[in-house]
Structure formats: structure tokens, C-alpha cells
């Protein structure tokens, strides 16, 4: 029988891929534990490390744990452990391009270096009346997040 090129990366008989039941249970328990960990971590406020503020670390921890959980599911439940190299390439490619897309955030990260001042402050005659017809800043509690101060929107 002529071997087609695919058999290079095809894995013969798939029936040999079943995980031991114990492993599955173990993964499930691990996932539960990690979930508890996330909930717990979200209530304690972590200290800042050097320049990185604590809130960022909190978020990193949360996302990190979620990523570990995701990895567990992908590796064991979804059987990437056994999948063909091709399937793995696709898994990686997907997350890689997703990562590229987050480059969009770079725009917002670097924009604050060339922020544009509004005109309320430096138009003498209209006493700081905003040029915007809409009520601005909008009603409700004025936000106190640092990013806002850095000119994501006119203040």
C-alpha cells in the first residue's frame, strides 16, 4: 500500500490514546483546587513589587491561574497530549495570533506619552466651560483610576 504523506504525522491507532481514569479524576480535583485558589486570591490585596502595582499582580495571578487551568484542560481533557503535531501547531498558532492581536493595547499604552491637553483650562473667556455639548465628565461618581487622569478621554 502506498503510504500517503499524512501518515508521517498521523498516529496510527487512536484507540491507544485513552487516559487512565485516575488521571482524569486527578485533573478534575486539581481544577477545583485552582478555582478555590483564584477566589481566595481575589480577596487578598497583594503588595506591589517594585514598579509593578499590587493590583496588576492580583490580576496577573488571577489570569495566571486561569491559564494553568486552561492548559490542564487542553493537555489532558482535550488530549493534545496525544494529538498530531499538526493539531498542536494549530493550538499554538491560535494563541500566538491572539497574542499578536493584544498588540492593539500597545497603542493605548504608548498614546499617553503624547497626550493632548483639552482646551477648557486654557480658554480664558469661557471660564472652563467645556467645549463639548454633552455633559462631560458624565454624571455619577467621577472615576478615580490613574489611567483616566492620563488623558484617555478629555477631562
Amino acid at each position, binding site marked *: 500500500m*502506498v*503510504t*500517503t*504523506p*499524512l501518515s508521517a504525522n498521523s498516529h496510527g491507532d487512536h484507540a491507544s490514546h485513552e487516559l487512565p481514569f485516575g488521571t482524569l479524576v486527578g485533573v478534575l480535583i486539581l481544577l477545583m483546587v485552582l478555582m478555590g485558589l483564584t477566589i481566595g486570591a481575589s480577596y487578598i490585596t497583594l503588595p506591589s513589587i517594585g514598579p509593578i502595582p499590587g493590583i496588576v499582580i492580583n490580576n496577573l495571578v488571577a489570569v495566571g491561574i486561569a491559564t494553568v487551568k486552561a492548559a490542564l484542560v487542553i493537555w489532558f481533557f482535550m488530549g493534545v497530549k496525544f494529538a498530531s503535531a*499538526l493539531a498542536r501547531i494549530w493550538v499554538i*498558532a*491560535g494563541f500566538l*495570533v491572539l497574542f*499578536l*492581536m493584544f*498588540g*492593539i493595547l*500597545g*497603542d*493605548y*499604552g*504608548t*498614546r499617553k*506619552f*503624547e497626550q493632548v491637553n483639552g482646551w477648557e483650562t486654557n480658554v480664558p473667556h469661557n471660564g472652563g466651560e467645556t467645549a463639548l455639548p*454633552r455633559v462631560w465628565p*458624565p454624571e455619577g461618581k467621577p472615576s478615580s483610576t490613574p489611567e483616566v487622569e492620563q488623558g*484617555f*478621554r478629555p477631562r
Partner: protein
Amino acid sequence: MISQPAPAASETNYINEFGGLKSWLLTGDHKRIAILYLISVTFFFFLGSVAAAMIRWELTAPAGVVLESDTYNKVFSSHGVIMVFTFLVVAIPSVFGNFFLPIMIGARDMAFPRLNLLSWYLYMAGGILILAGMINGGVDGGWTFYTPYSSMYSNSNVTLVLTGVFIIGFSSITTGINFIVTTHKMRAPGMTWFRLPLFVWAHYATAVVIILGTPVVAITLLLVVFERAFKLPIFNPELGGDPVLFQHLFWFYSHPAVYIMILPAFGIISELIANFARKRVFGYHFIAFSTLAIAGLGFLVWGHHMFISSQSMYQGIVFSLISFLVAVPSAIKVFNWTATLYKANIRLQSPMLYALGFIGLFTVGGLTGLFLGSMGTDVHLTATYFVVAHFHYVMVGGTMTAFLGGLHYWWPKMTGRLYAEGLAKANAIIVFLGFNLTFFPQFIVGWLGMPRRYHYYYLAPEYQVYNIMSTLGSGFLGIGFLLPAFYLSKSLMNGRKASANPWGAHGLEWEIPSPPPSTNFLQIPIVLDEVYDFDPVTEYEQDRAQQAIEHAHEHPGMMDSHDETASKLEEGGH
């Protein structure tokens, strides 16, 4: 290639094996699905062209001719939406890719025939939604649908049309999945990656871009729909949302989408150049890898559509840099195609004329891209007719020309009929000239500063002369698009039957009868020889021999050197 029993042996082919409309609408055969696609994209292209004609007519006078501004805005938006989403993105992959990718790699069908059929139905559903939106009330906002105009201010059928585009997105995703799996898993024995025709490489790269890009625009447009339908305030500046974020997400797909439109065209051109120059493509590996490079880098340049959209200057610089990097692979292709012609045996048949025209037009289109990739000039030229001209040089001069070239090249294989070659050649020249007359003046008028999507330009009447030239050219272009419809459909009725390989071309699709049998191959071929396996010298001698014979038949009695070579060849030759 070893394999096929004598071609033309089989009388039944994919067209006549099963009869009845039902057998077409429920078919899983990639060839029949390709034909369904061919009919539908032609229909949509016709609609888009009508809109284009209206635009051109309206622009002959600075203060418009017949239309109200609202109507005009809806017309140009319809032109953009129809041409981009229902023609350019779909046409080449879904028609020629669908038809020939499995044949070229020696497979009986796509990996997932039913998915393939589903993609056509999705396409039609989306297309019908779009048309519905345009018929009852129309849509404006241009094909880019920038927020907040599209999400908060437009009072046209944006919701309906965007839903249609969303659905069409899934149609191309399913096609992409099919291409990827098929190329990876269905190659015939011996069909190694570097024996793949460049057409297949191009479609593989395209599929990758489709898979990774389309979902992003799908969700983005869906969010606009939600904002209109359920007041979901994602891009609403009044609530602190950011309309520029929409542009980021939109172009993250829509720049790669440009490569979805042009890469398959590259594939077709590589086929045409190689087969009509009777010579292996120069730098096969470089073209193949440049295709992948374009697909990869294409995901990193979306920001060059946004240099002046209040995007951060620093990120803009990065995008500009990468944009210049992505220009290089395109240059590589053009030079390689040109080099292929060196020491070749060039047949100037109609598909080749389109291919040569493509090289010229794409060169101009690509180089004018540098004007827009370099930030300094982009500030002045972006959002003017310069962009319109650049885009049309790449998309009409590139993709559309390649589509026509491919159509002429594979028509005998798809239908089993030969068309009027003379008319086809003339048409290729009409298209080339008409195109340049249409779009070159737009470079100038854009450089003068005429913004795109303008209905009236009475504030700057000096633009009129170029607009009139452009409209004249569009007339010729229109003829160039109608003529093929005429002589191709005529060939269906009374065209001569086509042999299995009317062009003397090289490739698996030419080793099976035309039109091919339903299962493509009676037996899966085993590929032994390289791709585009021509030898210029023997090709040359055969040409001379053939000429000599023709010559001898014209002037019987007269003997000259030609006939000697001819007789020699006829003894020892074939």
C-alpha cells in the same frame, strides 16, 4: 505522473453524471460547488459593477448629476460592501480554489464535502441578507462601517447588512478549514510540499489568514449589530467607549483580508506564467516562502490604515516599518515572474495576456502602496482618491485580472468547451487599457486632494476633468467585463469540445478528462515528477517542428531548413 488510464476515455463527467437541480443543490462535489460559487459571485460582481457605474456617472459633474447625496452614499457603500465581502474575498478561493485545489494535489474531493456545501449556503444566506438590506432602504457608511457613525448615527440598514457580512465570514471560515485540512491530509502519494503547484501554496496561506483573521472581524461587526439592536455600548464614546478600538479590530482582519484577496491571485498568475512560458517558475521556493511571509507579516501591519486616526505615533512608526518589510515579498514575486520569462517559450494566448497585464498593474499598485506606507506622505494621501486608485490597482488590476485569467485558463477544463480565442485576446487588451484610463487619473486627483466618498466637489471644481477621464475609462472597463460573459456563455452552446489538455499545460488537473469525472481520478495518482516540469529546449524544438509543418502545409513544394528539422523530429522526435 503515472496513473490515469487514457484521458477522454470516460464519457460521464461531473456535469452530466447526475441530473436535475436537486443533484446540484445537494451536491458534495467540490467541482459542482465551485460552479455554484462561480454563478453567484458573477451575479454579485454584476451588481457591484452597476453601483460603480452609477458612482462614475454621478461624479462627472461637480454638483452631481441625478442622485441625492443620501442615495449616492448608499450607492458607494453598496459598491464597497458587495465587491469586498461578496466578490473579492470569496471569488478566487471559492471558485478556482474549490475546483482545482483537490485535483492539483491528487485528491478525490475536499476533506469535508458537506462543510463545503454548507459554506456556499452560508454565502448565499449572507449575500441575500446584504441585498435585502440594500433593496429596502439601502446602507451607508462605506464598507469600513466606522463607529460611531455605523453604530449610532446611520439610519440605514446597517444591522441587516452587517449580519449578512457576519454570516459570509463563517462561509469563508468553513472554506478555509477545508483548504487547510485538505492540503495537509489529502495530498496524493509523492505529492510532497515542494511538488505542490504554487496555486496550492497560495491557497494554503490564504486559508491560514482566513482562519486566524475572520473571527475577529466577525465579532467586531457583531458588536456593532448588538450596539444598534440592544444598545450594547461597546464603541460608544458618550459612555467612555472608544470608537478607534473598532478601527483596530476591524483592520486587524481587514488588512490581512487584502491578502486573502490577492494571494490566490498570485497563485493563479504563477500557474499562468509557468504554463504559458513553458518553463518552471523561477525561484519556486522563494515564491512559496514569500507567500507564507506575506500571510504572516500581514497580521502585523493593520495600523498603517490608522496613521492619522489618533493612533499613538509610536505604534504608528512600528506599523510603518513592518509595512515596508511586507512589501519585500511582493517585490520578490514580481521579479521572479519576470525572470521566469527568460529563456522561455512564451505563448501569448489570452490567459497569458491577462497574466502579463497583472504583472504591470500589480507593480504599479504595489509601489503606490509605498506612498501610503510611508507615514509622511500618507498624512496627505490617505482617505483621498489616491487610496481609491491604489486599492483598485491591486484589487481590480490584480485580483480581478487574475480572476479573468484563471477563468480563461481553466474554462476548457471546467466546461469542456473552447471559447473564441481571438475575442478573448482583444478583451484582455480592452480590460488593460480601460482599467488604466479609469484609475490612473484617480491617482492625480487624489494627489490634488479630492477626498474619497465625495458626492459633490463643487468646492473644488478643478477635479472635474480627471473624474470625466475616469468615467470614460470605466465605460471601456465595463465592456471588458461584459464581453467575456458573452463569448464564454456562447462557447457553452456551440463551443468546440476541449481536449484533456488544450494548452499543453503541466499539472494534475490537465491529466484528467475535461470536464473531469465526478471522482476526479479513476485511481489516486502517484506523483513522480517535479512541478512545472518543462524543458525549454525540447519545447523549443517541438515548436519549431510544428511551425515547420504548418509552413510546409501552407507552401507545398517549397523545402527549407524548417522542414528538415521537422522531418527529423517526426522521425526521432515524439
